[in-house]
């Protein structure tokens, strides 16, 4: 209120209500936080591009020589190229798991939002309760059960638990309620379409952005789940990249530590790119219903 407004700045209204000092303070604090959040990733990028063996030298703040391609070549040849096998495993587990999981979530969430049926309330309460309990807590019991039915060292032991996503069902229900009007469904029914056809041709199309969000959340959730694959997959040719890299890191010097640095960058880069490219879907999922 106190500063004089320069005429052309009228559009940027908030400017007039803040003093330069407060702007500077806020900027400094936010800058500090940005440094905290970005420094480890920046270090990872810089270190991975340095010539092989120099990863842990220098300040780590700035590039020093270029060896990224050589590093990736070394990464690819370590242990007969098992790194790329791990990457492929990760993509398969996450892709297949998220695809099936999203389908199941969409079907269930849609039914919960749009139909009245016996057991509906109980099912929804169960889903909510399961969202609250973290998945990791189920891992040991799952391991015990899988070893009881001899599913250890079988990709199914990772995939089967991964496709069940209570949070996905919850999101699908919220989104189906918001984005699929009953009138449209009713119109489809009057045209003689069966219930499943109505779902497939009308509801899925209207829920599509929401389904992308659910897919993303599930993909990342599966990628993040370390304990389950680490326990049920002993064969390193079946493991996802997170489990493989941790094993390399724990091998002390059997695998050169610089390879862990480079492998970390390579395994994180696609996730980061996808994350930046698909930001709006993320926020849609996180704020769905949270601001109510």
């Amino acid at each position, binding site marked *: 209120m106190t500063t004089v407004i320069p005429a052309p700045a009228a559009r940027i209204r908030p400017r007039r209500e803040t003093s330069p000092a*407060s702007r500077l303070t806020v900027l400094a604090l936010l800058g500090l936080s940005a440094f905290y*959040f970005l420094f480890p990733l920046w270090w990872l990028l810089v270190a991975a591009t340095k010539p092989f063996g120099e990863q842990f030298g220098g300040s780590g703040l700035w590039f020093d020589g270029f060896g990224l391609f050589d590093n990736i070549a070394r990464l690819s040849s370590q242990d007969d190229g098992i790194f790329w096998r791990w990457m492929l495993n990760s993509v398969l587990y996450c892709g297949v798991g998220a695809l099936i999981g999203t389908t199941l979530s969409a079907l269930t969430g849609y039914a919960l939002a749009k139909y009245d049926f016996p057991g509906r309330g109980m099912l929804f309460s169960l889903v909510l309760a399961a969202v609250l309990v973290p998945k990791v*807590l189920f891992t040991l019991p799952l391991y015990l059960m899988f070893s009881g039915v001899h599913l250890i060292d079988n990709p199914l032991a990772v995939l089967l638990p991964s496709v069940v996503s209570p*949070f996905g069902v919850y999101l699908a229900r919220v989104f189906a309620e918001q984005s699929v009007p009953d009138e449209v469904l009713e119109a489809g029914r009057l045209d003689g379409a069966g219930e499943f056809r109505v779902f497939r041709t009308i509801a899925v199309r209207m829920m599509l952005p929401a389904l992308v969000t659910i897919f993303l959340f599930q993909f*990342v959730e599966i990628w993040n789940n*370390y304990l389950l694959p680490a326990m049920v997959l002993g064969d390193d040719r079946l493991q996802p990249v997170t489990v493989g890299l941790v094993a390399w890191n724990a091998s002390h010097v059997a695998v050169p530590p610089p390879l862990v640095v480079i492998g970390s960058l390579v395994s994180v880069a696609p996730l980061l790119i996808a994350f930046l490219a698909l930001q709006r879907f993320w926020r849609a999922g*996180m704020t769905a219903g949270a601001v109510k």
Partner: protein
Amino acid sequence: MTHAPAAHRAPARRPATTAPSRRTRETPPGHPRRLRPLLFCAPFVVLFVAMYIAPILYAAYSSLFTIRRSGLGLTAPTEVFAPLDNYTRALHDGSFTASLGRVALFGVVQVPLMLGLALALALLIDSKSARGRGFFRLTSFVPYAIPGVSAALVWSFMYSSTSSPLNRLLEPLAVTVPFFDQDVVLWSVANIVTWSWAGYNMIIIYAALQSIPAEVLEAARMDGASALRIAWSVKIPAVRGALVLTTVFSIIGSAQLYNEPAVLQPVSGGSISSAFTPLMSAQNAVADGNYPYAAAQSVLLAVAVGMVSLIFFKLTRRGDHA
């Protein structure tokens, strides 16, 4: 660790028009139309029962048996039904109870710090003085895109006792942080968790801030309230719900602490024990081949988590009605 995203706070309401309009179609019970929704749900329900309920029941059941080995170890160990043995053993197992205490301490210290940071960031980005809002929102949220294990790997390089880039940055100040010291290592782990999740919580709080009506803030400003005063008396009370929610999830998250300490353990020089957290302790029992004991520990942990979140929800529910 996986915090469930924060969405289930939306009240379970549905448009009042839904049910009646369908009822008027007069679908008799048992008609295919009434059964169709059950078919929609069936695949999920079957897998849910198999992957959530069955393992818990299986674990609860197998925790009731104890492995007995004969004195000389000449015969194969036998499982004996002794329902309380594993539970009494777990409650008297120093390393298991110590791990429970450790995550409790972790939760009490790390959760308020992380949420304080998240709240401060959300308020700063929301403040009128902020520039580059989109950029700062994104930078704090980026760690969320990094899998917990990868984040722990990267931080293990940051903490390295021989080549820590952080200590190199601190060199001019003549400070060296012993990240893997016995007394420090829990907070080194806490820092990784904070780094990963502060931005995520910030987004939730920020979204709540955005939903404060502009007139309310304008009125406070007209009354001459300073920016700090508005933040304290208007904004923070308005995001109370979001704070409660993020607190519950963070507490639950602390209980299942696993990835970060497990990744740091081999490079920690022994300061992270193999039973550092309850999950690691239960995993130890698996490694020893004592499945019933592992099952008992998992059940105890699940019960503890369930109770804590139940209590929290009960407390905050009451607050919401007030």
